[in-house]
């Protein structure tokens, strides 16, 4: 079918548009669009690009604050961190491509999020990845895990941005739809931030980077369609990442920016040239002309339809002043990159493209971007899972329970994963993966930037609102463990089909939970991404609203520790007992996915985190927050240096709740004996329990003289290392 053939309702539907949406298009244009124009509408009006089902709800997020320079709406969020620096960060999903081709899907996911960051003038300084897989014995699953890990590693390692954190978790609901969420954090001087704006009529449009092939055409519409066998059929050419070109692009773009040669710039992400040009025009309230014949093509005979919708990787659109075009081309040439002038900014708010001397399309910017459809999809308020009557939890063999948990995938050591990632390139990594959050220095300064990704999808499935709220609270705690104060949040909201009122209800509740908690902690949400339609043949994934949080340590004086050393005194900051509702203990040991998931108690969380933050900054404590698996698992993690512990609970506590309870916003602290008074003083007014000391070969825990746990450290660590051990073999 020819690129300029007239569109039809059938074609519109095949492009993923509804009949109603097609009628709106006809009305807005007052004529029948051609196939290329239809493709452009379909891409920009897709869920992926238009956020048509989520936008009304995302308004609930607190997005402003004294330090917010740029909230949602640009390629990434921008927050001031002092001394003239800003941090720029965002998280994005690449779920469907990674399920089809795990290696390239994950790799191009990393490439895409990197471009969102450096396109704003920031040098990327850290990558994180939040991963969800199905049961390891599900079809293709080990192949998917291996491919995703290699893809993330090979791309980030080659580009030379350290991958310093993330999550990996497993649940059968991801058997047919894994999640790959990549996050990137960059830094820039406050006065060299750039935006995706095609402003200044008469300015020139420059195409920069790899040539355009027939890659990923329909990618945006596919990411917005339920993922089934049919999708496999209309599968486009898989995008292949080229991290070498990306690395050169980063250096070239940063040089162009500092050289004052850039008016506006944006990467070509989903829907490639289409989204970049229309969004840049829309933000600037301008229009532009494009000569598609000048777009560098990788294959012969590419049509305007293909050129506009290709999702070939490592491409940028750049706007510069007419008298600077030559200088731009010179810099790009030095970096060995293709750069071509392909158009001009115009005052008229429309995009007009010519191809082989004739007009290929003419579309009003507003209809495609601002007037994209918005839906208030019907939704059902989720019913939070209630408690279930538990079996008798006295006189169990707690050691066996602990070993069962540590041998299960959710508690697998991530070492075989992150050892395939370069964690220290950049020579600024202070805290590497393995702790609660990563900490990296702003190059050439002693300002520390910390980041973490968190989401307990098990809890979100039981209670989307409290589960999402708890994800925010855990992120705050994780940052506190490296001494960082939160400055902003990005998120990646992974859900099933928004056309299913139950799923939509989960989404609305999760947004509410994140919004409320961010408000309470006064942390703005400055960027994010929504990924709907994560389901296969009607089975939706667990609601997975991943929270990415960035924090700052104004001056890093001490290297935060996450393990304890022989002879240190161990304190529990928080109540002696946790809650078993929604806990890993119920899930893994008792096989119960049962509630309730408690709400976050903002006040005590805030005060505990503030205390820990201060102590870590002074180098007085090794800290670990108590999350999945409760105190017992936190103690095992703090023993990973090979040093055990001798702990005793206060009389009268329930062993199950004390060992495996969660949700209390508690921390384990290890303190050198001499520093105890200062620590006790800093925690005045907070529940602080002296549990015992670190030391010995075993992790031992007693209550009322009875031994609850007495397990060799080495063995416990081996259990955790074994689960994903195959990932570090040939």
């Amino acid at each position: 079918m020819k690129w300029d053939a007239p569109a039809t309702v059938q074609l519109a539907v095949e492009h993923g548009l509804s009949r109603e949406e097609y009628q709106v298009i006809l009305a807005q244009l007052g004529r029948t669009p051609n196939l290329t124009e239809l493709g452009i509408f379909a891409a920009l009006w897709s869920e992926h690009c238009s956020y048509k089902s989520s936008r009304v709800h995302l308004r609930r997020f607190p997005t402003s604050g004294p330090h917010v320079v740029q909230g949602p709406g640009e390629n990434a969020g921008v927050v001031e961190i002092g001394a003239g620096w800003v941090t720029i960060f965002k998280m994005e999903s690449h779920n469907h491509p990674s399920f089809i081709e795990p290696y390239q899907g994950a790799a191009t996911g990393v490439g895409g999020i990197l471009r969102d960051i450096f396109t704003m003038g920031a040098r990327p300084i850290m990558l994180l990845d939040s991963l969800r897989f199905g049961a390891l014995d599900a079809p293709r699953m080990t192949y998917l895990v291996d491919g995703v890990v290699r893809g993330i590693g090979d791309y980030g390692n080659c580009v030379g941005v350290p991958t310093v954190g993330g999550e990996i978790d497993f649940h059968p609901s991801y058997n047919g739809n894994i999640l790959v969420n990549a996050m990137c954090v960059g830094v820039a001087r406050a006065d060299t931030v750039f935006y995706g704006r095609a402003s200044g009529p008469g300015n020139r449009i420059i195409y920069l980077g790899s040539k355009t092939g027939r890659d990923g055409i329909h990618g945006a519409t596919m990411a917005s369609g339920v993922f089934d066998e049919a999708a496999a059929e209309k599968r486009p050419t898989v995008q292949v990442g080229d991290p070498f070109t990306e690395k050169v692009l980063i250096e070239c773009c940063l040089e162009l920016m500092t050289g004052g040669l850039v008016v506006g710039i944006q990467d070509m992400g989903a829907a490639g040239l289409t989204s970049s040009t229309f969004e840049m025009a829309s933000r600037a309230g301008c229009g532009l002309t494009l000569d598609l014949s000048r777009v560098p093509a990788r294959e012969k005979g590419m049509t305007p339809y293909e050129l506009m919708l290709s999702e070939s990787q490592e491409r940028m659109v750049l706007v510069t002043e007419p008298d600077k075009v030559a200088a731009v081309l010179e810099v790009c040439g030095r970096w060995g990159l293709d750069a071509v002038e392909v158009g001009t900014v115009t005052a008229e708010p429309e995009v007009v493209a010519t191809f082989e001397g004739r007009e290929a399309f003419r579309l009003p910017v507003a209809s495609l971007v601002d007037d994209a459809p918005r839906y208030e999809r019907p939704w059902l308020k989720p019913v939070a899972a209630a408690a279930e009557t538990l079996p008798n939890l006295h006189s169990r063999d707690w050691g066996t329970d602990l070993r069962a948990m540590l041998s299960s995938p959710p508690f697998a050591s991530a070492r075989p994963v992150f050892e395939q990632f370069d964690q220290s390139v950049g020579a600024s990594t202070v805290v590497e993966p393995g702790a609660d959050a990563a900490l990296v220095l702003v190059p050439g300064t002693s300002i520390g930037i910390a980041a973490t990704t968190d989401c307990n999808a098990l809890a979100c499935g039981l209670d989307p609102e409290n589960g999402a709220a708890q994800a925010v609270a855990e992120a705050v705690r994780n940052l506190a463990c490296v001494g960082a104060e939160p400055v902003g949040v990005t998120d990646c909201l992974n859900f099933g089909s928004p056309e299913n009122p139950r799923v939509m209800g989960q989404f609305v509740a999760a947004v509410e939970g994140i919004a409320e908690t961010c408000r309470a902690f006064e942390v703005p949400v400055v960027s994010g991404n929504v990924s709907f339609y994560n389901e296969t043949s009607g089975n939706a994934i667990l609601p997975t609203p991943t929270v990415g949080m960035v924090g700052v340590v104004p001056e890093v004086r001490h290297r935060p520790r996450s393990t304890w050393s022989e002879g240190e005194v161990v304190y529990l900051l928080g109540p002696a007992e946790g809650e078993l509702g929604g806990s890993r203990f119920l899930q893994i040991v008792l096989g119960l996915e049962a509630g309730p998931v408690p709400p976050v108690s903002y006040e005590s969380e805030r005060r505990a985190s503030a205390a820990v933050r201060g102590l870590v900054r002074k180098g007085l404590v090794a800290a670990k927050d108590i999350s999945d698996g409760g105190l017992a698992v936190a103690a095992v993690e703090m023993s990973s240096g090979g040093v055990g512990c001798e702990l005793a609970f206060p009389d009268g506590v329930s062993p199950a709740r004390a060992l495996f309870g969660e949700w209390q916003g508690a921390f384990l602290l290890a303190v050198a004996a001499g520093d105890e008074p200062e620590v006790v003083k800093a925690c005045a007014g907070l529940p602080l329990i002296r549990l015992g000391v670190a030391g010995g070969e075993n992790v031992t825990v007693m209550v009322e003289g009875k031994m609850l746990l007495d397990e060799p450290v080495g063995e416990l660590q081996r259990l955790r290392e074994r689960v994903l051990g195959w990932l570090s073999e040939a």
Partner: protein
Amino acid sequence: MRQRGRPRVAVVIFPGSNCDRDALAAVEAVGGEAVPVWHAGHDLAGCSAVILPGGFSYGDYLRAGAMAVHSPVMAAVRRHAEQGKPVLGICNGFQMLLEMGLLPGAMLMNRTLRFICRDVHLRVERDDLPLLAHLRRGQVLRLPIAHKEGNWFASPGVVKKVENAGAVALRYCTPSGELDVAANPNGALNAIAGLVNGAGNVLGLMPHPERRVRSLLGGEDGAAILRGVVEAA
């Protein structure tokens, strides 16, 4: 003869280098004057020592370091080396020195066929050269590795020559300095992690000393190596 002021150390930047900025900063941190040198140039900007930094020059496509060695500047690097002046190749830079034949052998893919990033222990085998002046024979260093092709290989004849000539500068070892398969991360023959040439002025190593010049970043073992380069300059 040494000109006045801080010794000038060139750090060559290739397309795809990604440890160049780290090396520049590390040189400054140990008292040298770090000079970035673009691969397309033909001279070393009057520097008296050269560092070929780590990274993925040309994406490490084809073979790690294989394409970078054909950059114009490499003729100057070769002359510099042949005149007996100090050259340090780190990771990708080491791979380049092998591809250029300035050091013996070649790199195969790691035994695990995977990229490996972790701290390793390294036993110092030579301390009688200016480049290694700040190390002591038998000393155990702790430095990070980050590579996929660090599995050093050479024919049996060449391996014997290398050992007889005492060309091994560093070997992977246990924390207490013993050699042990488990302590050899990539399968390199004779646990070789670093080599020097016959004249002792060309040093190549897989670990990353430039990442360890501050205790805040996990240790200062790397500073000793870079100091050697700066002072030999």
